[in-house]
């Protein structure tokens, strides 16, 4: 369509049925030719915003195994499709180029990071957990009370994690006798 005065959307809005300019009045061929990337997604996962505790439902759009968009889920009785600036930026959170995707290791007294393979890191951590537990084990405390525990291993975190994850964390640490297990709820 040639750009003429008559194609000015305000005219369409004033003369047509769409007086509020929310429908036909503001459409153009260009509008009609654009396809939202959400429409060509391979699949949509039902998710929940990871920031505050309101629990806004999200729709996570995936194409070629990549997250291409995250939107509020209009079905949710909590957020009715809305997201705040953080929730709306959560695609940027999960696809950020700043994310750590490999392991960084800082040796004692080192001034820089070095790389480590996942398997190696897991073996090293397991060794250190076992050693710390063995070195600091208490069958009884200083008053002779039975405590069967270690005060050598502590943990902080959980409020951003899943219930299933917190369950395994507490279960494993409790079996190992580690008790200084804490999260944001104390803070």
């Amino acid at each position, binding site marked *: 369509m040639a750009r003429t005065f008559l194609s000015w959307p305000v005219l369409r809005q004033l003369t047509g049925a769409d007086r509020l300019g929310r429908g036909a009045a503001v459409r153009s061929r260009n509008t009609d030719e654009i396809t939202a990337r959400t429409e060509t997604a391979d699949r949509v*996962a*039902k*998710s*929940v915003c*990871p920031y*505050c505790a309101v*629990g806004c439902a999200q729709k*996570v759009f995936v194409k070629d195994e990549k*997250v291409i968009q*995250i939107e509020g889920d209009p*079905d949710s*009785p*909590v957020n009715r499709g809305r997201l705040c*600036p*953080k929730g709306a930026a959560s695609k*940027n959170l999960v696809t*950020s180029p*700043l*994310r*750590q*995707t*490999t392991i960084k290791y800082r040796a*004692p*007294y080192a001034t820089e990071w070095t790389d480590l393979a996942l398997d190696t890191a*897991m073996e*090293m*951590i397991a060794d*250190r*957990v076992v050693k*710390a537990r063995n*070195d*600091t084990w208490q069958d009884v405390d200083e008053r002779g*009370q*039975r405590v069967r525990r270690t*005060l*050598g*291993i*502590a*943990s*902080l*975190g*959980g*409020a*951003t*994690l*899943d*219930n*299933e*994850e*917190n*369950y*395994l*964390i507490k*279960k494993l640490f*409790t*079996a*190992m006798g580690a008790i200084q297990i*804490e999260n944001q709820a*104390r*803070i």
Partner: protein
Amino acid sequence: MAEAHPVGFQWVMEAKARGAKIIHVDPRFTRTSALADTFVPIRAGSDIAFLGGIVNYVLSNELDFREYVVNYTNAAAIVSDDFQDTDDLDGLFSGYDPETRTYDPTSWQYAGDEPAADDEQNPEMQRETASALQHESHGSGVKANPPRDETLQDPRCVYQVLKRHYARYTPEMVARTCGVSEEQFREVCEAWTANSNPDRTTALVYSVGWTQHSVGVQYIRTGAILQLLLGNMGRPGGGVMALRGHASIQGSTDIPTLFNLLPGYLPMPNAVEHQSLEQWIEAVSQPDAKGFWANASAYGVNLLKAYFGDAATPENDFCFDYLPKITGDHGTYSTVMDMIDGKVKGYFLLGQNPAVGSAHGRAQRLGMANLDWVVVRDLFEIESATFWKTSPEVATGEIVPEECRTEVFLMPAASHVEKEGTFTQTQRMLQWREKAVEPPDDCRSELWFFYHLGRMVRERYADSTEERDLPIQQLAWDYPTHGPLVEPSAEAVLMEINGFEVESGRPLSSFIEMKADGSTLGGCWIYTGVYKDGVNQAARRKPGSDQSFVAPEWGWAWPANRRMLYNRASADPSGKPWSERKAYVWWDEDAGEWTGHDVPDFEKTKPPSYRPPDGAAGVEGLAGNDPFIMQGDGKGALYVPQGLIDGPMPTHYEPVESPFRNPFYAQQANPTSKEYVRPDNPSNPSPSQGHSEVYPYVFTTSRLTEHHTAGGMSRFVARLAELQPEMFIEVSPELADERGLEPGGWATIITSRSAIEARVLVTDRLTPLKVEGRTVHQVWLPYHWGEGGLVTGDSANDLIGISLDPNVLIQESKVGTCDVRPGRRPTGPALRRLVMDYQNDAGLTTAHAVEDTKESQS
């Protein structure tokens, strides 16, 4: 709420559109204030005085919802003759021991309920173990049937005790203490009371900065008292609503990663009181009390069966002995002190950034620099992973990388779209998330990390013959895995949390089906039902528009998919709705059962007229008009005879750091707060200690909409970093004049812990208040910044010291004193010199500080 929970705030706006009046009380004018009908600026740390004033307004004018109060609260219960109030003892309750700084609550009990000599409480142990947190759902451990005076005239009844306690919280005292004008205070009183009756309800909403005070629990208690007096609890549109700040912080409290709790609010056993299964169960079930805790043996046994599987049998007390025992305060702050003192070897940080997010950042970082190893699991390279090379202490020379031995493993985590599982949001609702994509490279879920770590630790102990290794060897740890990453099944874990019959594998549909004989297991009794009928109820997504306003088929709420707790109170004593407008749950006489819009929070067929036989306890002991079914007497607690460390009724104390003497009593601050008196944790002096003018201003902190807590999920996100790019301090024009602060320039903020710098934002969002006849300036800081991420800045939490609420061991980080001066802070060792110069001016040499603190405690 509009700032930190903006999408939740849409419902406040919906209410406003329907005629609700919105009142916002806050030290600072925010986006919430902008949309409220009334904004009430208040001095940070004076909330009990403010709310206590409203309680006094209600009681002195007899504006309470009398039928509700008599039937549903403990207003009629008679308190022991031995009880003495803060009026009698100038700010202390009876039973105070200045040596231990704790109370013996014997005299606080209901008449006739004073414990026998052999049944003594151990308040010091209770404070050390944050025992009140367990009462979050245990209810107060009172016996079933205290003596009552339903005319509320007996001078020893709770109603009269409460009335006397708050009589001095007059509008004049509120104005003097809070800096709120009498006129504005009366406006709030009138609005709240006028809107609370059979036909109307008022909601009290707080964000959890309220918990971050040395009297945090008592803040919330004051709100609860008011809402009970006005009949707003258990009714639609009423309640006390906590806006919690993390996606599953409710879940991580229910299924706790907390030192003093096991799943479902079962207490971690302590070495003094819980050396046997029987002792542990009795401590929870309280044999003489009413209510659903009576079944604690089933809840406890099911947890032990879930933990230790086949090894847990009736003969060995279900391996109760395998549980480690706590002996005191093992909270995160005490652990940090232990790190500084070299007692801790290894530390896991799981999506948490204490170098920025916890009080007293310097102590956090110095603690981490004195460990053997730290495992940081996060999405980004947060400050808690880089303390050894980028922290402020590296600049001051307190941490020297070449001399710091701590090994650091920065392990990349899977994001919320790269794993499946449930979050529990702030209204106890679980929502299942589907996995959208696989995590990249070495990123893994915590489920993966802990499952495999557990597997590897078990391999290392597989051949051990040591008795102490039995719990690890016999741990039930055989979860199915799937996919190329060998990811454990989150649904299998959720099924274990829900519980099932051991023999048949049939999922339990309610905790009522749990058996104490080992024939069922379940990892968290309050979550039983989330897998009802073998269906993942948390994954339900029936559109809100296709169901009632309660939306019971979206997700699943504990317990038993109840969306509102204690909703029996939404009907009158005879079981009828208080009004048609506020009908929610009611007794259907013809059907002989409770029904309504929500799952009734009451035994379905117990009629309102039911009265328990003499001596009945447990569930049977609950009368048809006892809506508070987890409380030992079935009633809402206006007065708490036991379970709280710092008193049966909220009382105004000044914050630990305050420019003012307590206007109400000689007792300055919470006499039972948990203090760590040591040179690396100084407190700014209060007026009674002298030199309080060195730190003359009040500061508070909170969140911006565009950032999230310690910034680990927002400073690394380009969009959010761009929206709020820089640390700043908000100051009033009057303070800017007084201190020569330039808009857009720099200010340095100094406390006895540290000094930070921030850009100056001069704004009338902060108003100087008149308190005790003089002007007090308050300043406000966001706390999202650190040295990492796309946008950097100093961390407000570095300013804060470690003083804790005695009930739950949460730090006072929402109010403190400081100095503010123009210009940037010094760098390098000069930063510490500035802080120490101030300490010297304030008389905070080490010995002096210790002495002063002791003095202030007595």
